[in-house]
């Protein structure tokens, strides 16, 4: 009866379009107050405070701030110039450059829609002017934008790390292989689709100038990942270093950010973090309750009785996450599903870091699937195309990414080869 009450509560809150933090908070309060073993509701607030009082959480505002600072100026233009200068002689070189620019930009911004807006708004007109088909241009930029959350630094990876208790450093390192692999698949798709399109030539002068203009931007991902991989910095420290580097580069070298603009950037960071912070601490509080009540362990036992094979588990979990990605954004899905699915994955012998990457790649595809694929709406708006034509354009690229997901699922080494 009490559990039925919980489902009824969730349904009513969903019907009245309540924000996720209200749903998460109401569910947590219901668990503490009605289902719990006498734990008081004030105890829930105490858990919220302890959830917020975590070192790792510091990396969230710092990475968001570094990305905001770096994207204030013309960094996207600089990266596109490097990518186009290098891919000029490749068939469909300009679209391959789009994928490459998205890949590098993803290593700075950590957000898929931001990546799509920054690269897409510059490159889409250039692609159309160069005679690239509309479907290829829209599709490849929308899909390339999704790389934002799989290539580190990635906000969903930090959230997964908090919810599943997995090292964020390991997740960042493990995201590199699958991110580059997916970028490679998207690039190969562009080459095949645009084989007939006119090609350019390499120009040493253009390549030199492009690198001179964009080297400092290219160095940022190397600084973050190099610092983490070498063990010199923790994820939080590398985020702080990224902030300092972004301020120095944008103020002193690119000169595209004025010091007077920094307070506004800090305020925007607060607004972006606000989207995540409250639901994150409420979810951690709910997770603490579930762990105390041994709910994940109970689910593992129930599932283990009906599914014996790890392969069947992986296929089932991929399908579940793909469906979840159609209806939920990546962070919400991770907050709800990571604490429940990760113990099951461990039970079936799946490395939790590999499982985190799998989860993020699945939810990355969700950025392209209706009804709530964010990149579909962003692409429709910035390219001024109907949602229907964007959905048709990304269709083949979803298949390419599903093929990539299959490889990432069943070849764990692709994610884990860099881990020490």
């Amino acid at each position, binding site marked *: 009866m009490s559990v039925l009450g919980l489902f009824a509560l969730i349904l009513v809150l969903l019907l009245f379009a309540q924000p996720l933090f*209200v749903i998460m908070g109401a569910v947590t*309060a219901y668990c503490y107050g009605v289902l719990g073993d006498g734990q008081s509701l004030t105890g829930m*607030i105490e858990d919220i405070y302890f959830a917020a009082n*975590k070192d790792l959480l510091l990396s969230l505002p710092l990475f968001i701030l570094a990305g905001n600072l770096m994207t204030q100026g013309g960094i996207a233009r600089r990266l596109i110039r490097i990518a186009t200068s290098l891919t000029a002689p490749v068939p469909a070189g300009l679209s391959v450059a789009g994928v490459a620019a998205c890949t590098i930009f993803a290593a700075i911004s950590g957000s898929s829609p931001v990546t799509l807006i920054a690269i897409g708004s510059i490159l889409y007109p250039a692609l159309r002017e160069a005679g690239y088909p509309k479907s290829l241009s829209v599709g490849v930029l929308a899909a390339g934008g999704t790389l934002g959350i799989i290539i580190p630094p990635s906000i969903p990876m930090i959230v997964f790390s908090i919810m599943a208790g997995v090292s964020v450093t390991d997740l960042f390192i493990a995201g590199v292989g699958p991110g580059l692999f997916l970028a490679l698949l998207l690039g190969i798709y562009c080459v095949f689709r645009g084989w007939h399109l006119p090609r350019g030539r390499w120009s040493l002068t253009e390549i030199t100038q492009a690198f001179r203009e964009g080297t400092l931007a290219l160095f940022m991902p190397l600084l973050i990942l190099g610092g983490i991989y070498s063990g010199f910095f923790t994820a939080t420290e590398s985020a702080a270093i990224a902030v300092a580097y972004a301020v120095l580069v944008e103020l002193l070298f690119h000169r595209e950010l004025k010091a007077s603009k920094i*307070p506004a950037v*800090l305020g925007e960071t607060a607004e972006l973090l606000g989207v995540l912070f*409250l639901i994150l601490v409420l979810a951690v509080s709910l997770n603490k309750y579930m762990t105390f009540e041994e709910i994940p362990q109970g689910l593992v036992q129930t599932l283990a009785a009906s599914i014996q094979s790890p392969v069947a588990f992986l296929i089932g979990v991929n399908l579940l996450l793909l469906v979840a990605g159609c209806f939920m954004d990546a962070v919400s899905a991770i907050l709800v599903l990571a604490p429940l699915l990760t113990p099951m994955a461990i039970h079936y012998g799946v490395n939790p870091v590999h499982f985190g990457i799998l989860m993020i790649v699945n939810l990355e595809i969700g950025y392209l699937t209706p009804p709530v694929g964010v990149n579909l709406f962003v692409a429709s708006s910035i390219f001024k195309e109907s949602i229907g034509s964007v959905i048709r354009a990304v269709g083949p690229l979803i298949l390419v990414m599903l093929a990539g997901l299959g490889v990432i699922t069943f070849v764990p080494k692709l994610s884990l080869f860099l881990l020490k």
Partner: protein
Amino acid sequence: MSSRVGSFLNGLHRLEKWVAGACFGGLSLLVLADIFLREGLHRSFPFGPKLAIDLMIWGGFLGASLTSARGTHLRAEAFEKIWPLSWRPAVETIGQWMTAAFCAALGYLAFSYVRETHQMGEVGVVTGIPVWISQAMIPYSFASLTLRHLAYAVMPSLRPRPGLEDLA
């Protein structure tokens, strides 16, 4: 009336955004100072990261209030589409009342919790700062959220309508 409340909420938004921005600026400097002192001068600075976490708690909870001001809280929008079009304004108003009620309840609980901490006189082990100061932003944030959603419930014209940039 509506314009006065709107001006008040805008002023509150600017103030909260400024304080939250200052918190994030401060926490960035504290983490950097910790790295510089440890790696450059081989000195420990445990106070820095601990105070940075306190600033993050302030900035994070204020950020939740700022997010309501922009109307960009994550929500499952698919469900609200089941209502007939003519019902949706009323459903939205009821939704705003529900959000306000939830925030008020949590704000009350948070206030009780912070009052207990204050009465116990707990202080941070490393920083020596009373713990209730770090916690005080929790009830404030819920109070601010309550006020905002109450205003949105009573005055629909004040409700924010997020744009494309908010999707990012």
